[in-house]
């Protein structure tokens, strides 16, 4: 989870994943939707690959730095 | 003895700095006719319009211009016609001048001197403040507060030569001060040649065993007058003039309080958040609970206009005397 909030402590909600495990995603393509104190944002994939596993499903609230999923290049 | 009024000493400092270094220039409102208090009188005639610049009423613009010029090798001296007007340019001073050297990891210097005439003198709240306390809490600024002609000249020349941004305070009521028969410790020859004084070096204006009193500018003069009165009662004040509050000479003050066991700071600004707090806190950290500590500042009000009100708000010699007596009497804040 990148630091989308104002601080490194601000927790971020995962609203929904836009890809399912096993699906391919291109770099820059929307991967999940999150919610901070300020706004709802779409997070794109940093690189292309296959979404291997979702660690934190929709509804989870995490701090920046926490692993939320695995992308297999 | 060569005595100069503070206004003359400052003018001489500017003149000599401008003569030695062609990069020094003055900028501000009405500086060609002498600025708010005649300090720059005569300089445009000697150095020309390129080096003494009148600006429109635009504190942000001319402060910013000075900062840009300073980063590019010039040495601007900015006059805020009244020190209260510095608030119009706070971003330029606090966010820019104070921080640019740091943020750029030393790639630029900002050798700008801002001159601020301050002090209550019957003009009302927005033309009366002593503003130095607020800047003490900003890393990256030098804050100079001279009380004598000798210090004023030496510190202004040093300020202009310093590679850092400097807030140079000039008390309006002290401009005509040239020395005193009574307050002899403020009386000193002003050398004709240029000279500089170090920052962060306080002067002990009067030695004494009973109570350390720290004050700057006009308050220093009043404290010394109070010291004369108290001496006749057998109370000996040790009076310290920091001369610069950033950097601040904590050693001299702490050493003095170590001997007297009592500290009073007299400042011409509201006690809450005043620079006196910094001195009290520094001494308290070093000397702990064994010393008596007190502040005396202006009342917690804006400075009122009329004489009776202004006199009530700003510490005068009488109130300083009372505060000292109280500290000696029951050993604590009166």
């Amino acid at each position, binding site marked *: 989870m990148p630091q989308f909030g104002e601080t490194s402590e601000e927790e971020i909600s995962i609203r929904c994943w836009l890809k399912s495990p096993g699906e391919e995603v291109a770099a820059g393509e929307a991967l999940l939707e999150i919610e901070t104190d300020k706004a709802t944002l779409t*997070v794109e994939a*940093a690189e292309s690959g296959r979404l291997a596993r979702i660690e934190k499903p929709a509804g989870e609230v995490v701090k920046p*730095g926490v692993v939320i999923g695995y992308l297999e290049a | 003895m060569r005595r100069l009024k503070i206004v003359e000493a400052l003018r001489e400092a500017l003149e000599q700095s401008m003569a030695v270094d062609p990069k020094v220039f003055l900028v501000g409102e009405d500086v060609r006719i002498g600025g708010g208090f005649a300090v720059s009188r005569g300089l445009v005639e000697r150095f020309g319009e390129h080096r003494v610049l009148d600006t*429109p009423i*635009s504190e942000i613009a001319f402060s910013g211009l000075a900062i840009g*010029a300073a980063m590019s090798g010039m040495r601007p001296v900015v006059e805020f016609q009244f020190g209260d007007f510095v608030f119009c340019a706070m971003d330029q001073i606090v966010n820019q001048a104070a921080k640019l050297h740091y943020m750029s990891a030393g790639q630029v210097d900002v050798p700008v001197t801002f001159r601020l005439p301050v002090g209550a003198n019957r003009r009302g709240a927005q033309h009366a403040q002593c503003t130095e306390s607020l800047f003490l809490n900003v890393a990256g600024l030098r804050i100079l507060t001279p009380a004598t002609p000798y210090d004023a000249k030496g510190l202004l020349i040093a300020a202009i030569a310093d590679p850092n941004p400097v807030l140079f305070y000039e008390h309006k009521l002290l401009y005509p001060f040239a020395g005193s028969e009574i307050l002899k410790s403020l009386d000193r020859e002003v050398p004709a040649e240029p000279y500089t004084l170090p920052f962060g070096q306080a002067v002990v204006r009067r030695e004494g065993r009973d109570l350390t009193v720290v004050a700057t500018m006009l308050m220093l003069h009043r404290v010394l007058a109070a010291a004369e009165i108290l001496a006749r009662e057998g109370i000996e004040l040790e009076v310290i003039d920091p001369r610069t509050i950033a950097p601040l000479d904590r050693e001299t003050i702490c050493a003095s309080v170590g001997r007297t066991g009592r500290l009073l700071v007299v400042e011409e600004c509201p006690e809450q958040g005043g620079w006196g707090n910094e001195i009290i806190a520094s001494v308290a950290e070093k000397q702990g609970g064994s010393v008596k500590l007190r502040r005396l500042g202006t009342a917690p009000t804006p400075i009122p206009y009329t004489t009776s009100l202004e006199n009530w708000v700003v510490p005068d010699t009488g109130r300083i005397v009372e505060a000292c007596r109280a500290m000696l009497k029951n050993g604590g804040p009166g």
Partner: protein
Amino acid sequence: MYRLMVRIRSFEHKVTQLFLKGLVPGTIHLSQGQEAVAAGAVSCLRKSDRVLLTHRPHGQALAKGLEPKRLLAEILGRAEGCCRGKGGSMHLADLEHGIMPTMPIVGAGIPIAAGVAFAFRESGSDAVVMGFFGDGATNIGAFHEAMNLAALWKLPVVYVCENNLYAVSTSIRDSTLVPELAERARVYGMPAASVDGNDVEMVYAAADEAVGRARRGEGPSFLECKTYRFSGHSRTDPGTYRCAEEIEEWKGRDPLPRCRAAILSRGYLDEQGCRSLEAEEERIVEAAAAFAMASPQPEGSRALDDVFAEG
């Protein structure tokens, strides 16, 4: 100039990637979509000219010559960044390439740019200063004071306004009754022009004219460049205050494909040449990323350095 725009676009993309990987300590203000303003305007300048930039400085900084690896290391807050991690994305500086410390306080750099120009003029140099800011800055006091003073004193500064129609989420329509920003400079007696900021050649031509004027001692100019940022204001801003149609419309005016098409149609490069240039810029950015990621965080006590200059 196309090379510069490609470099900027690749760079901003790489910064996005690194941000998503959690490597950027703070937020970032990206300039995808605005590359033509940076490349076009800065290309008129000499190395000895100076630029004053803002919180969205990557494009202009790269165009002026800041090495991508030093910029990226600074964004990641590493010791080998151009400011040794002291400044970050918003407070860059590279005096060797004429990049004055960048200032994210909106408008603060406008009078400061005038001051740098003043110093050049007084020293007899014919160097000029180019100050960049956005549409939002045309409302703040510093802008008005500085426009007035720079024009009055005929200072050698060119002010380039990137009008991307928004200041964070506030539309220009909600900020001023005079959205033709060139008017706001003309009113101070300053020559002003307004151009399509996504046409790099137009930007270059207009900026070059203004720079020439300044260099000849004829005073300042204002150049409004109409453009658009593809991303939100910062990485924490999704930009949802803008409608999808507007974003799509501007994406259709993307300065990079327009420039590329012009290059191909005029035969400056062929398709192979373009691809080769683009790949080369990718490699430069990749190398910059590798350098930046390998650079250490500065030692904590280095925070005490540079509060004051030694006299």
